[in-house]
């Protein structure tokens, strides 16, 4: 046994030496043709890549990857050195605990910046770690208000927060859809509950009553019991705060129970996946998505074509991820450095024309004048209804809806 073990060990060492040797041999030729030095800049990304939200996580990762591939092809020079960006993508499973683990992993890998996380529930605890390490973080999709209210100068987001979104949704439900009795369901995550709370505030403020407030979780597929309970309260609108994997079956079951109430959701339900999962229950559902419709943005159509050619249909947040990378790199270019401490001040005062919006941040790190667009499923497809606020971000005073919400926060 002992001898066998020693042989095994020796073999392993030989293999190991061979592997590292190979690795070393491959590296030198790369910088050889270009005389100037090349530095590798690591960009971290975290999202759920397994579990019910894996399709959204992968979508985010693809958005980041597309931007990084483009930037590498451009052959950028920052601080006199040729820069090669490397993507480190981690799976946080939409779980706050795993979120902090992968955040620490990214910090230990010395990333220059992080795009992520996808969910508010993972983004908020991870943001403390990034802040302690001084690493700038841009979340493409975490909309819970708390994220940027913690006093961290490293936390940014390129999407309007739930304070703004909930207010717009609430006013839309009462004023445009004429809802008087409203039932609210959320998935008890930081995102779902946060958005549902803001929505509840807004509809109460607009004079509607909340007939039921129900809860589920972000892994559930059966909503018959809570929907039956809601049916007894006879609401004219049901609001769901959560992601598409739950919203889809929920819409289907709503229909099978014969509930006639309208269904309204936030950004988490605003995906083609929702339409697929909900089947015949999808028709007529409403949702909101922070930002301007891609087709209306300069460069939006081009981004859509590039993304679709490479990765297929856009699920949800890929354009925001793409913008987040470009914003971060824009700040690095302005600071002429990829060091977090040096480009962070530039990031805070950036002005960048992205594919989702013209991006600049307020003193908290929230996007200024974030627009919110409302959608409805018509003939099995999400169609744009209207865009509220922030449509023309060039004009300094942000429109009333978004600005008012920002002030109350």
């Amino acid at each position, binding site marked *: 046994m002992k001898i066998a073990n020693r042989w095994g060990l020796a073999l392993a060492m030989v293999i190991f030496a061979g592997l590292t040797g190979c690795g070393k041999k491959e590296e030198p030729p790369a910088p050889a043709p270009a005389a100037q030095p090349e530095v590798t800049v690591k960009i971290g990304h975290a999202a759920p890549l397994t579990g019910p939200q894996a399709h959204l996580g992968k979508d985010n990762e693809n958005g980041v990857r597309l931007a990084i591939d483009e930037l590498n092809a451009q052959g950028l020079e920052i601080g006199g050195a040729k820069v090669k960006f490397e993507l480190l993508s981690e799976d946080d499973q939409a779980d706050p605990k795993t979120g902090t683990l992968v955040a620490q992993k990214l910090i230990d890998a010395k990333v220059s910046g992080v795009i992520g996380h996808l969910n508010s529930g993972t983004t908020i605890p991870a943001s403390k770690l990034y802040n302690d390490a001084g690493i700038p973080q841009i979340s493409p999709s975490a909309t819970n208000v708390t994220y940027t209210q913690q006093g961290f100068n490293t936390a940014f987001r390129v999407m309007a927060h739930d304070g703004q979104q909930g207010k717009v949704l609430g006013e839309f439900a009462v004023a445009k859809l004429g809802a008087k009795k409203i039932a609210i369901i959320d998935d008890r995550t930081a995102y779902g509950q946060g958005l549902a709370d803001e929505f509840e505030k807004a509809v109460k403020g607009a004079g509607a009553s909340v007939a039921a407030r129900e809860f589920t979780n972000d892994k559930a597929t059966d909503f*018959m019991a809570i929907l039956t*309970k809601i049916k007894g309260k006879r609401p004219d609108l049901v609001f769901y705060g959560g992601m598409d994997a739950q919203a*889809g079956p929920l819409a289907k079951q709503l229909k099978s*129970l014969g509930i006639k109430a309208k269904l309204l959701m936030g950004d988490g339900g605003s995906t083609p996946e929702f339409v697929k*999962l909900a089947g015949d229950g999808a028709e007529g559902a409403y949702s909101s998505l922070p930002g301007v419709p891609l087709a209306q943005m300069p460069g939006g159509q081009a981004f859509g074509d590039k993304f679709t050619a490479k990765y297929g249909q856009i699920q949800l947040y890929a354009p925001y991820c793409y913008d987040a990378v470009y914003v971060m790199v824009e700040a690095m270019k302005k600071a002429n450095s990829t060091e977090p401490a040096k480009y962070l001040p530039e990031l805070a005062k950036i002005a960048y024309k992205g594919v989702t919006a013209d991006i600049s941040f307020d003193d908290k790190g929230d996007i200024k004048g974030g627009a919110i667009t409302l959608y409805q499923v018509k003939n099995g497809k999400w169609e744009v209804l209207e865009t509220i606020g922030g449509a023309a971000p060039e004009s300094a005073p942000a429109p009333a809806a978004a600005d008012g919400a920002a002030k109350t926060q």
Partner: protein
Amino acid sequence: MDIFIQQLVNGVVLGSIYALVALGYTLVYGILGLINFAHGELVMVGALVALSVVRTLSPLLPGLPGWVLALLGTAVAAGVCALLAILIERVAYRPLRHAPRLAPLITAIGVSIALQNLAMVIWGRQYHSVPPLLPAASHQFAGAAITEVQILIVALAALLMAGLIGLVHRTRLGRAMRACAENIQVAELMGVNVNAIVVAAFVIGAVLAAVAGVMVSANYGLAHYHMGFLLGLKAFTAAVLGGIGNVGGAMLGGLLLGIMESLGAGYLEDLSGGFLGSHYQDVLAFFVLILVLVSRPSGLLGERVGQRA
């Protein structure tokens, strides 16, 4: 009142699915005393295999009515699950049959994780929407809405359970199974081919799991690689509630758990004066489980466990 009936209907549908899956746990436990934690994953494999069959066949045979496709899908799924169960038993459980009881429990968990990851590789991580093959028409029944799929689920579950009871109590195979459950060594000495009986128990459980998988995916219109885990856990709870090892107990436990969850979600808030919301439905279900186990440690219909080898 109609809301109460609707909740009851919801509970019975949910409970029928739990009961079908619980039978798989109980059959294997009754004979081997092994908790086959990989059983829930068979439900998932069944659902996804059936979905793949339907997806491949529907463009090839466009004129085929939906129910034929569903039947074909279920049949293939049952076959695949049965083969998989035989493989799992042979590889992961038989070599450990005389090992300490914890060892097969750990391999069961290992098999469960392995199957989940295998399914993730084969079918991907996304949620698959299941095409509506069966009529989705909704019927009014004493003020409650019930879809044809749900009627089918309850009817088929009842039929399968009746068939299983017949099998266990009326056939040679059933007698051999009961003999093994009584005392596996003595049964072997009496000339019962124990290995064959164990395989039969796994296969029957797997077929029921495959059918349950198709039912679940048809009912909710979706299938994904981790759909079996939580369902397996609930069904295991149902089996324990009814008395694990007892076929009738698994059915009773499944129905009770389904109805409890449904009524819990519907009435917990009103009963507790708004203190506990509908999201405490699982808490209520498990609280009842604890109460039952404290007063009847072997479950509602369970026998004394002390005799088991």
